């Protein structure tokens, strides 16, 4: 008898996250030896600050992908929320109202995705590709392609404030990580999401209203993109309708490098969080060591392929054991 195949799968998962953490440390050590400031507190803080949009949105994307779907529209929702929050901050000025507008706006856009996918049974990739164009188009028209700036200072204060030397947005990101990780692991909601991604038909035949849960993942994904958008505009003070282009690809990259199965049912927030931070760190390290901008993206692409191959090969090996 093979001893405990159960422990083996657990090992793989643990190994994946350990591997990401080791790679992260390794990057800091290697680059830090040459450029000591790279591993310094202020650079690390800045790096985490830069990770915030991808980091927060990756959590929503992970929920959606674990539940068996995908959300291509997150970049568009991100910028739409940033614009909504920016407009409120510019014209009304109430910072709380501005942030809420961004977050709720994101959730509403996410619910459009959820509705299209669960009510009209449009495949997630098609539905969210369409809404991506839709949201971006509407936002461009609404803003007449103009940059939104001159936000009032009280809103910007949220984006730029720090506690314990760490920017508020970074705290928000970590809060999102922790809440999502706990929710996925311990709540009934988390259990159903994993189950739906594993076998949607079986869950439906177990009397669970699958559509409700699936729709909810898109709403959460939208709301998180809204949080990220609000934080981004509060940090920079400006937003254009073309911001966040290609963001969805960075996010999906982080989710799969983090060990989430693109087929659904498997993945952890810890892995996704580590991957988001790792990818940002590597991008930043490539800049620091002076690698050409064109090569940077190519190298990130290779990292994604490598990570996913390791996952797929590991899975095949497991299947062969069976």
């Amino acid at each position, binding site marked *: *008898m093979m*001893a*405990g*195949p*159960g422990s083996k*799968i*657990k090992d793989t998962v643990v190994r994946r996250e350990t591997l990401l953490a080791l790679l992260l440390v390794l990057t800091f050590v290697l680059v830090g030896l040459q450029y000591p400031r790279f591993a310094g507190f202020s650079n690390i803080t800045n790096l985490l600050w830069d990770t915030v949009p991808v980091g927060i949105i990756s959590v929503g994307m992970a929920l959606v992908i674990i539940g068996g779907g995908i959300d291509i529209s997150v970049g568009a929702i991100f910028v739409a929320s940033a614009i909504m929050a920016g407009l409120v901050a510019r014209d009304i000025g109430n910072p709380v109202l501005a942030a809420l507008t961004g977050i709720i706006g994101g959730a509403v856009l996410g619910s459009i995705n959820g509705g299209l996918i669960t009510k009209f049974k449009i495949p997630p990739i098609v539905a969210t590709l369409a809404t991506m164009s839709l949201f971006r188009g509407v936002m461009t028209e609404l803003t007449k392609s103009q940059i939104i700036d001159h936000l009032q200072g009280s809103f910007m204060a949220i984006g730029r404030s720090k506690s314990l030397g760490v920017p508020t947005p970074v705290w928000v990101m970590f809060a999102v990580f922790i809440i999502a990780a706990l929710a996925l692991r*311990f*709540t*009934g*909601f988390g*259990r*159903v999401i*994993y*189950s739906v*991604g*594993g*076998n949607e*038909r*079986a*869950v*439906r*035949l*177990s*009397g*669970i*209203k699958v559509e409700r849960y699936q729709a909810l993942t898109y709403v959460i994904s939208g709301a998180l993109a809204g949080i990220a958008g609000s934080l981004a505009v509060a940090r920079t003070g400006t937003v254009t309708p073309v911001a966040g282009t290609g963001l969805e690809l960075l996010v999906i990259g982080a989710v799969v490098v983090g060990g989430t*199965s693109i087929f659904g*049912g*498997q993945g952890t927030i810890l892995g996704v969080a580590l991957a988001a931070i790792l990818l940002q760190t590597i991008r930043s390290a490539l800049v620091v060591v002076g690698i050409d901008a064109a090569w940077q993206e190519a190298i990130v692409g290779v990292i994604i392929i490598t990570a996913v191959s390791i996952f797929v090969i590991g899975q095949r090996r497991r*299947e062969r*054991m*069976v």
Partner: protein
Amino acid sequence: MRALDNVSIELAAGEIHGIVGENGAGKSTLVEIIGGAIHPDRGTIELTGVPFTFSGPSDARARGIAVVHQEFHSLLHLSATENVLLGSRITSGAIVNWPRAHAEAESVFRELGVEVDVRAPMRSLKPAQRKFTEIANALYGAASVILLDEPTAALDPDDSDRLLRVMRLLAERGLAVGFVSHRLEEVIRITDQVTVLRDGHKVGTWPTRDASVSILIKHMVGRELEKIEPQTKDPNAAVALDVSGATLKGVLDDVSLQVRSGEVVGICGLLGSGRSELARAIFGALPIDAGRISVFGSDLPLGSTSHAMAAGVAFVPPNRKEDGLIGTMDVQKNVTLAVLRRLRRRLLVDRKKEQAMSLEFVKRLRVVTTGIDQPIETLSGGNQQKVLIARWLATEPRVLIVDEPTQGVDVGAKFEIHQLINELAEGGMGVLLISSDLPELLTMSDRVLVMRSGRLSGEFCRGEATQEAVISAAAGHCLT
């Protein structure tokens, strides 16, 4: 551990050789070795006395050894013709000569004595016709040895029968036919020789006329299984499930039936007869146009699985891979899926309660695992099925609908599942059993209802239900 240990088998030309054993006994490994897909660590393969080593399945195929696998390996979007001629040259120059190709495929089917629309895409063909197509492909490739791995597992009785006749025909044409099957009645009926494997070892080979189902089972499990004795049922027990006038256009036509508390009612029917749709309709997973479904006297709203569950209906679906198991999860999470709501404490899943519940069911159903955290995919088919049944027993049902509860399950687990169903019925549950395994249906059911084209076309009590009577009611004609 060895998957197969020092096993020798001889397939004679013109004979059907049955290969039986429980899951994990090594049947599939043996088939893979003969078919060239697996290299044995030791041992030889001889064809007409000449030893061979195969470099792979295509090599074995070129030498006349064909394997028809349990799962369909055909190209579903291509026509039957293309699947029959697969691997052979059907082109003249660069252009496919379609009229000739279709004619050739048709002639192969004619030889087999079966009817298949050669121009139809495979996906539109019935499972039996797909099997015939794969057999035709083997025949067209001039096979002299053909191994069929569980060919009748997905077929209904009528089609199984047809397939057995095709196998006999192949043997009469001088092929050596290997028949791997869990359906021991079929093995006894059709084979000339039978080999029993257990835990990778060969128990023995016997002429089939000296064997019987019970002898085979004894050799397969290494012990004798007690017979299941039918209990006498109370004819005045409360009606657990009452279906009247269930109708769904083109699928179900005015179906009415009753299952009393403590009763096991079997439903027999060919694929497409509506038997599985009826089960789904009762469970609320398939909305119906008209009809009334009530459980212990109270009506269910149609088309709502949650109401059906709340009323105490449980449905163990067929196809445990597609409709049942969450392959990415462990035993425990698969057991508790249908009762998650009951395990919730506020928003959280009560882990202690969940663990206790799954342990209880694993023990009660004698699921063989290394622990409740073992991934479900690594369990044997029989144990997976038990986990699926456990999921539904956890809902504490009063009406249990089971569709193909023992398909692809080995003899030992099958026996245990049968025992369990009987125990549940004795405890007052009303059981609706749908199965294409006729002997199972006949031994388990107090009454057998037969469905044909969405209608109930016959009812037999225990004792009057014989294989012949049930099959002809299901097929709508008398079988010769």
